[in-house]
């Protein structure tokens, strides 16, 4: 695009507006997390008059944050890994092989993405109760139930995006490998997966973000021992007397892993999207 002086002015104000919209809440979170309790219990101030990092230590006592962290990490990492493996395999089949039932399968996978979680929540809960009654396998209140639920949540988008990504890889690449005698699966692992790494990373990040922030199912499927960060902090935030500075400190702490991971892969995410999903 050819940039005119008028456009430069427009660009400046446009970007300033968007930056302010994004930054104000982030600024409030960070500055509040550095204020002593007395300063957050009265009227709000934009510029903190006293700095302290005490909230970052106190919050681990106020709520069992370490326990929540452990639970969230176990559930989210397991769900992400499983979801990526399943999506890679299914997307490869959809992009490269032709088989009966291909269209119905994609149709079902795509359409589940549009239904609200609330439709599945109660029936899923009942199925888990029934599985426990029948086999003793504990899926409510345990990690396992939440893991299989979360891994399925990110599947539709992941499969869809990776199918587009795989389809854009020239077929000659894996044909050469198959002539060398590697077979289909060999070609998938030696050729396709390395080439499609940006797309796969983007999908993994998507799955991680989805599971890390999920609230609805965690509110019903977790017990006191398996509470995730999302539910733990949500429950604390709705109490009568909230230590907002500590809650904001916790918010910073739980967001950092996701934000850092996201910064590293955001480039891949955009490349992945532009060669996969968007086409």
């Amino acid at each position, binding site marked *: 695009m050819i940039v005119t002086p008028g456009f430069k002015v427009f660009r400046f104000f446009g970007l300033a507006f968007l930056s302010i919209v994004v930054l104000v809440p982030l600024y409030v979170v960070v500055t509040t997390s550095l204020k002593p309790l007395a300063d957050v*219990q009265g009227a709000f101030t934009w510029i903190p008059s006293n700095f302290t990092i005490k909230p970052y230590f106190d919050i681990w006592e106020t709520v069992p944050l370490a326990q929540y962290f452990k639970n969230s990490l176990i559930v989210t990492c397991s769900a992400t890994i499983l979801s990526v493996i*399943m999506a890679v395999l*299914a997307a490869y089949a959809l992009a490269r092989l032709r088989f009966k039932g291909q269209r119905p*399968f994609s149709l079902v*996978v795509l359409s589940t993405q549009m239904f609200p979680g609330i439709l599945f929540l109660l029936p*899923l809960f009942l199925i888990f109760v029934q599985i426990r009654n029948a086999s003793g396998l504990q899926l409510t209140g345990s990690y396992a139930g939440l893991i299989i639920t979360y891994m399925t949540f990110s*599947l539709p988008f992941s499969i869809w995006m990776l199918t587009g990504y795989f389809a854009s890889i020239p077929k000659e690449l894996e044909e050469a490998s198959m002539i060398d005698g590697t077979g289909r699966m060999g070609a998938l692992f030696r050729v396709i997966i390395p080439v499609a790494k940006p797309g796969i990373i983007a999908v993994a990040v998507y799955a991680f973000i989805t599971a890390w922030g999920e609230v609805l199912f965690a509110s019903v499927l977790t017990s006191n021992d398996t509470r995730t960060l999302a539910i733990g902090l949500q429950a604390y935030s709705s109490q009568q007397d909230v230590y907002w500075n500590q809650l904001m400190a916790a918010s910073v702490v739980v967001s950092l892993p996701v934000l850092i991971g996201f910064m590293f892969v955001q480039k891949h995410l955009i490349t992945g999207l*532009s060669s996969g999903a968007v086409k």
Partner: protein
Amino acid sequence: MTLNVLPPASTESGLPEEPQRSESAPLRPARKKKRPSLLPYGLIAPAALAELLIHLLPMVLGIWIAFITLNQLSIANWVDAPFVGFQNFVNGLNPNSSIGAEFYSALGRTIGFTIIVLAIAWSMGMLGAVLLTTSFRGRGILRTLFLVPYALPSYVGTIAWAFMFNRSDGAINHFLVDQLHLFGGDRPFWLLGGNSFWAIVIVTAWQMWPFAFLMLLAALQNIPGDVYEAAALDGASLWKQFTRITLPMIKPANAVLMLIMGLWIFNQFNVPFVLFGAASPKEATLISPLIYQQSFSNWNFGLGGAMSVLLLIVLLIASAFYIRMVLPKPKPGEED
């Protein structure tokens, strides 16, 4: 990465397949007579199983729930809960009953909510995407910054807004009332009454627009630059270039984006749940939180089920359009 670990289902059907495949590879001209392979089924099996257990089975069971009496007492042994026919629908979805009226007004409100949030989020995303496709110093930093609300866990963003909307010591009332002296010194409630609807609009739009930005940025990068140069040489203004080149060229990606975002917004649950808890103010009750409230606060699962079935029908109709637009037609000559 972990991708070397195959789930058992696909290893079983994948491995025996390999020798056969590599033998047939040199015979490629005769490929048409290839026997139907089990490999694709092995590959989709894990995903298909997960979808079956977590999505399909519950959906079928969800319809059944709408026809039984299910409450705290019968839930432990729900298989034997009494069948009541259309009773739940008659009780709950009759527009003249109070619960029914609530359902329909929540449905209408959710549609309005979806349109407003989609319009705001799309416009902001488009603005950001168009501005960041031009090059200037600091572009990379701004791109990262704009994606932060999307990368941030949804509940964290919402908790931050909950604090800002706080009536007595929140940032918003401090700014509007103490600094700009609006509302004649009266501090408005943001999380109660009519304003609560606008609170969820603002928070949802804040969280959603980076997704529009991300998808539109990716779509814009696929437009070759010389198209714009040619248009500029012909004297087309920037606005003309936007409406005549940019918008038409990203139309397919845009349609998909609008539908996905529209559905996410329509199904919104996190923002009201974190802002208000299980029971939203009546001016801000969206459809998902309403069903949650009926099921898990009022313990009337049958009614929640009946509402879900109705919602399912609405979404199924919408999904017919969605799939037609998103699913690529069977590709002729793509494979073999």
